[in-house]
């Protein structure tokens, strides 16, 4: 049995799954319920200056019938009294001494920071998370992402916190910045023990076509909000990787952003996270999803022979390279398995219109054929194919050669002028432009257009 427990910058927890600071951690009731369900830790909904919220607060990006592919909110930090929150933290810790309770904090002055850090510690919190991320409402008041976007201000505040903190301090980073490693390094300089990322991304999730207002709509108006949910995972993974690979960051990372299944969590971990946090998925499906997450993680670890979470942290990092270090000699082309093909011809139209005209149709069959010479191995067809493992990318080079752009640059062997013989696409075949006109009209304008082609009557 693999061991799921972690020690994240000194914060211990029975598994790496924490609830992120957000509505699911708004109260002691919710956090106890989550721990009961199997969550390893919870970052309490951010405590700090008093706020007032609006209604409604959330918007969603739906994809076809799938709800909440992306989610945004214009909510602020906790609007419950500080004293109630602190009392409930204490109660939860008494009941769940081995689970991680982290207090998320956001205030303004040095004195306020000192006071609230002490309050959180006295309540029994295992750690503190500094919310420098909220992209709406709080930043206008000089907090949240207004701090996260200014590495120097961030460092100063971390230093204030470290003056009094006796428990581990995590700095939560905003993605609304061009280089995530800048605030990460500032956190390190300020003496923080760990970072967590990402907070939500500034966004407008949609516009009401009748009311001409962005979602969510508050009395006919809307505002930009913070974007999260499955859609943001790719952005989060890249930022986690950037922090994990940067030689001057060197802090434990709590990965956040788009985690809904054990797979998403493993991806964050393989790119350097040593704990993960979840918000949208818990808001969508409730705390019960933890069972799938822990069992999937356990199964994966057993199959791969990982005994502890630490065994896997950052395992994919050595394979994340700069583009210039990739092997230019490696060649794949698409291959269609005719036994699996169902004849939807999505690969054909994708390659024909959206790639390199490297797939053709033959009379008498719906199964398309790859034109090997034209295939650049871009992958598009295999991505659009609805059948599992029907289009595979097959290796065509013999594996003996290796050459990167960096090596070619060093050897002074890169294309430098237009029409340079060494440029990639120079001899790649493309059809004559005019060959496009009228091509397959009868297939792309179906229905009535197909029907009345030749009408010849007798007088």
């Amino acid at each position, binding site marked *: 049995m693999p061991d799921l427990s972690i020690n994240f910058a000194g914060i211990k927890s029975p598994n790496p799954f924490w609830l992120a600071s957000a509505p699911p951690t708004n109260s002691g009731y919710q956090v106890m319920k989550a721990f009961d369900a199997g969550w390893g830790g919870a970052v309490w909904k951010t405590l700090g200056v008093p706020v007032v919220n609006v209604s409604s607060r959330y918007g969603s990006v739906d994809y*076809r*019938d*799938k709800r909440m592919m992306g989610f945004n909110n214009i909510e602020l930090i906790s609007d419950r009294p500080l004293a109630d929150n602190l009392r409930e933290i204490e109660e939860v810790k008494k009941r769940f001494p081995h689970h991680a309770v982290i207090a998320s904090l956001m205030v303004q002055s040095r004195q306020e920071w000192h006071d609230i850090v002490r309050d959180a510690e006295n309540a029994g919190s295992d750690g503190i998370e500094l919310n420098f991320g909220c992209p709406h409402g709080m930043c206008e008041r000089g907090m949240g992402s207004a701090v996260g976007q200014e590495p120097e201000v961030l460092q100063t505040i971390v230093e204030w916190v470290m003056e009094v903190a006796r428990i581990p301090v995590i700095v939560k980073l905003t993605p609304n910045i061009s280089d995530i490693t800048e605030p990460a390094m500032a956190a390190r300089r300020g003496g923080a023990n760990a970072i967590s990322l990402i907070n939500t991304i500034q966004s407008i999730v949609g516009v009401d076509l009748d009311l001409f207002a962005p979602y969510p709509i508050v009395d006919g108006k809307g505002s930009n909000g913070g974007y999260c949910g499955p859609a943001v995972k790719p952005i989060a993974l890249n930022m986690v990787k950037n922090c994990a690979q940067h030689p001057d960051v060197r802090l434990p990372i709590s990965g956040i952003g788009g985690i809904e299944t054990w797979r998403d969590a493993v991806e964050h971990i393989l790119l350097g996270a040593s704990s993960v946090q979840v918000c949208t998925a818990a808001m969508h499906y409730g705390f019960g999803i933890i069972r799938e997450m822990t069992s999937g993680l356990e199964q994966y670890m057993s199959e791969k022979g990982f005994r502890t979470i630490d065994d896997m942290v950052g395992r994919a990092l050595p394979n994340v390279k700069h583009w210039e270090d990739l092997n230019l000699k490696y060649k794949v082309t698409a291959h269609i398995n005719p036994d699996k093909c*169902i*004849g*939807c*011809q*999505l690969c*054909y*139209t994708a390659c024909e219109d959206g790639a390199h005209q490297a797939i053709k149709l033959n009379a008498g069959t*719906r199964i398309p054929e790859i034109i090997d010479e034209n295939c650049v191995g871009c992958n598009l067809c295999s991505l659009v194919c*609805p*059948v599992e493992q029907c289009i595979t990318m097959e290796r065509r080079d013999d594996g003996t050669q290796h050459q990167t752009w960096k090596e070619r640059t060093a050897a002074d062997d890169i294309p430098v002028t237009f029409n340079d013989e060494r440029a990639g696409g120079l001899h790649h075949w493309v059809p004559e432009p005019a060959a496009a006109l009228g091509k*397959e009209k009868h*297939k*792309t304008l*179906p*229905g*009535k257009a*197909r*029907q*009345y082609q*030749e*009408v*010849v*009557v*007798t*007088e």
Partner: protein
Amino acid sequence: MAEYATPTTEQEFAENFAQLKPLMSNSEALLESSRCLFCFDAPCIKACPSGIDIPLFIRQINSGNATGAARTIYEANYFGNACGKVCPTEVLCEGSCVYTATGAKPIEIGRLQSHATRQVIDQGKHLFQPGAPTGFRVAVIGAGPAGISCACELRKLGHEVEVFEAKSKPSGLTLYGVAPYKITNEETLAEMAYLEAQFGFRVHYNHAISTRPDLEKLEQAYDVIFLGIGLGHTSSLGLPGEDRENCVGAVEFIEQLRIRQEQTTVGRKVIVLGGGNTAMDAASESARLGAEKVVLAYRRGKEEMGAYEFEYDLAKGVGVQGLFNVAPLEIVGNGKVEGVKFVRTATLNGQVQTVPGSEFVEACDMVIKATGQAKQTSFLSLIPELQVDGKGRIVFNPNTGQTTNPRYFASGDAANGGAEVVNAAAEAKAAAHGIHQYLTKSHLSS
């Protein structure tokens, strides 16, 4: 044991004849339309006799444009809702959906189609209007799928159209023939009213064209005459006792059922003669009307029946029993039907032969003959130069609908010998274009 109690109220009738393809809710339509792959040169389109751009209308539903979806459907087929409900989709669009090759359920194209069209019908959202008047006049005989479709398209092209219909309601066998669990009378007529309101053709009901003078009047008053007359009554079997009380034709029985609904009477023990789709329908309908026992008797083996497999399954599902390899010899009884005398058959080299000495009587109190519809050959013989083929079908050019009498055009069952609503709708639309060409003489040849 009968599976169904005899329905005595409208409500009970609706329950016994519950719709096989009920209206999809918006949520269901969103879920189902999300599955469609938007295939290139989609096989479902090619399998649809009216060539509806299926992936397009499904995508329109999915993106919240059901009105646009309805337009896509109606542009190809004026019986959009009817076809969504009554088409044998299992062997047409849905049967060719690429999903069938994965073992997954095909997209429920028919129900999605009705989902979109019912919205515009119910909301009275008009999508079409008549074309600029051309001054040409066309008489349409028959207000079935062929006649109405032809009338709509001709009006769109600007020609004046008057429809002459023998019955009191439009839509032909869609109303008087199709099984009630496939489509309700209300929705059939609602679609007809919806079309009529947009295109403004005139229908003269209870106005059969049956004599040479009737035809002459039309020939004088109209530039072109379109024949959408369908088929005729159930063919007679030529068996002794066929005239006994309670020995009825399937088409006539079903017509009564569609009109009288729960007031239709059915025998306690019914024998249906035939192996086609109409036989399956009549057998299912008898069972749903509360008959205690329904026997489907067919001359050959089960596999040789002309009916679609799913239609037979449907009949079996409501308790219909099959009696195969038997040929009826006589309808026995004393005034009323009391049974059918059969002889067993065997098929030798493709030929059905009776087995001597194997005669037996199967008792019953009702016989439904589902042995095909007769052609309207005597009426057709009143039209000069009009040829019919050896099977009684009007000889016509399927691309134009034109018959051997250049001023007469035809489509639907009368020309194709009996197919589906969708065939009639599609052929008649093509015929309207043939008529248009003929009238405007923009493209002539012989």
